């Protein structure tokens, strides 16, 4: 359960049996061809995998690079979150649980959880910060229509961090019949590892698609946005053994890899944004899904080991990148995903990404949910 010195299982004793139970169930399921087959079927006939790798034709020309987009925005429910949720929901079903609990920031993980619950006949309870409920109203309504209960979280900064606290609290008191369906590569072991395994499909598909698409087979850069970091972890997993340079892009106001210090939050040890006394800072980003003061433990380890680097972009760059991609490629990316686009644009223009380079970027989700925010920002 460790990635270097990060990770672990910093949870109350009351949750330890549940963590063990999940770890055991996941290990068994993951080596059970029938489970793998069921998940593959759902990913294919239900969620729309494999997702295409789309060349960003016009933007590539403009930037003087070859930019390829891994289209997680085309999955059912509109983001990579569904990959993980289908895996965990099948696991919960196999474990005989009746309810999925989830935290959500932008609402994409909540929608995915509500979706998987409906599909498998489970109940779903989603914890969401009051502030995120306001700025992601569309997703709240989607969850309602899908039959999930959305519980507003009014503590702390009323965003993702607090939704995690609340979900964990609720989990402690309902651990017998409820399964905590965590949305990113965070939380106590086995979550960071399990979620990365469920998201690995992004990287493995992209790797194979690059091999087919690119003369050299492997892109020079592999880029993904990082909040907790699940789409990046899944993407990087597919390119870990290659020469590709891995770049995670965080929101300037939630850049735990850049401005964080080692700490323990939500059950795991990693880099955390905190004051000198150890109180966790509130993250601030135009993208609700990146409003998280921590980072998955594997990312902290990848940073320390130098295998991946982590960059930051600010809100203004992000909105500009979103508009740029929409108007050059006709693709409306999520504000979260637009962080990765923003960095590529900046780095290609500054020459940090050398002209002629190939860049594989995971577009983690679509931007429909952000339209209201973008309107205000335009």
């Amino acid at each position: 359960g460790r990635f270097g010195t990060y990770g672990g299982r910093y949870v109350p004793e009351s949750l330890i049996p549940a963590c063990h139970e999940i770890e055991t169930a996941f290990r068994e399921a993951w080596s059970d061809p029938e489970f793998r087959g069921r998940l593959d079927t759902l990913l294919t006939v239900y969620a729309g995998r494999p997702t295409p790798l789309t060349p960003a034709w016009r933007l590539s020309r403009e930037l003087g690079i070859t930019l390829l987009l891994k289209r997680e925005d085309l999955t059912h429910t509109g983001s990579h979150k569904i990959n993980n949720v289908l895996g965990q929901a099948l696991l919960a079903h196999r474990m005989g649980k009746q309810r999925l609990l989830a935290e959500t920031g932008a609402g994409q993980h909540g929608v995915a959880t509500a979706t998987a619950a409906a599909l498998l006949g489970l109940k779903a309870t989603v914890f969401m910060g009051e502030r995120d409920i306001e700025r992601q109203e569309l997703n709240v309504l989607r969850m309602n229509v899908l039959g999930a209960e959305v519980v507003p979280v009014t503590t702390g900064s009323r965003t993702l961090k607090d939704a995690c606290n609340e979900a964990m609290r609720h989990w402690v008191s309902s651990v017998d019949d409820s399964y905590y369906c965590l949305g990113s590569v965070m939380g106590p072991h086995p979550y960071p590892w399990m979620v990365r395994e469920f998201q690995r499909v992004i990287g493995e598909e992209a790797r194979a698609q690059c091999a087919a698409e690119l003369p050299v087979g492997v892109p020079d850069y592999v880029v993904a946005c990082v909040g907790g970091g699940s789409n990046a972890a899944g993407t990087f997993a597919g390119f870990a053994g290659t020469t590709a340079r891995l770049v995670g892009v965080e929101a300037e106001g939630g850049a735990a890899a850049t401005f964080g210090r080692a700490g323990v939050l939500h059950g795991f040890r990693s880099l955390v944004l905190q004051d000198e006394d150890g109180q966790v800072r509130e993250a601030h980003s135009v993208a609700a899904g990146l409003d998280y003061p921590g980072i998955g433990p594997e990312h902290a380890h990848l940073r320390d080991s130098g295998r991946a680097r982590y960059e930051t972009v600010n809100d203004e760059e992000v909105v500009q990148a979103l508009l740029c991609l929409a108007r050059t490629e006709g693709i409306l990316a999520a504000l979260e995903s637009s962080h990765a686009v923003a960095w590529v644009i900046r780095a290609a223009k500054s020459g940090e990404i050398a002209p002629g380079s190939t860049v594989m970027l995971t577009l983690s989700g679509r931007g429909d949910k952000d339209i209201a925010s973008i309107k205000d920002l335009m």
Partner: protein
Amino acid sequence: MTRSLEEFLIARRGTGRPLLVPYVTAGVTPGWTDVVHAYADAGADAVELGFPFSDPMLDGVTIQEASDRAIAAGTTVKGILEKVATLDVDVPLIAMTYSNLVVQRSAADFCAALTASGLRGLIVPDAPLEEAGELADAAAAEGLDLVLLAAPTSSRARLREITERSRGFVYALTRMGTTGERGEISERAARLGRELKGLTDRPVLFGFGVSSPAQAAELADHADGVVVASALMRKLLDGARPRELGEYVASIRRALDQGAR
């Protein structure tokens, strides 16, 4: 008071009285140290002192609110320790906080600082057996008792290890869930108490959801005593003065003592 927390509690238990450990969040009000005194005067056998953390995962709304209030008032670990060093109470003080505040310094530094200020015990709810190793070593080196938690869902093997490795006392969770007041005591809690008592001679205290003197007395039947937190903090947040909190602790004390007869 050079005895350890555990020695102190065992001695107290030896007098036949059920143990009572009330809780207060350090820094929640300017007069929080008065609350500590009031508890001690009202018959507490030790006082649990919350070091507020922004994200208290195992705590319910009441303690979270108290923590937020304390942090907003500028409470820091350093500040608490300075105050504690000046406190003169005749029962042991036990720190309760989360792992993140521990790892800001090293575990060794943190434990040393607690001990230097006179604290005798430490509870870190998000440091279960798996993660408590280094901290337990550091605490032992400083003579600080690291109290471990036991849950109704813990396996017998884990309960055995918890009772072996816990120091001071074993903190038995009355139920699954976060801190906060609840109405009923479950059969599950009683069973956990009996099981722990069968495994260890170390004091076993119930915590979580102890919300009335009667309930405290009922719980104490199945173990050696109780920790009372949210019920007290709710009153404090609602404006109760240290004296009133002391009176409430005294009422629990009486209920426990009567139940023990």
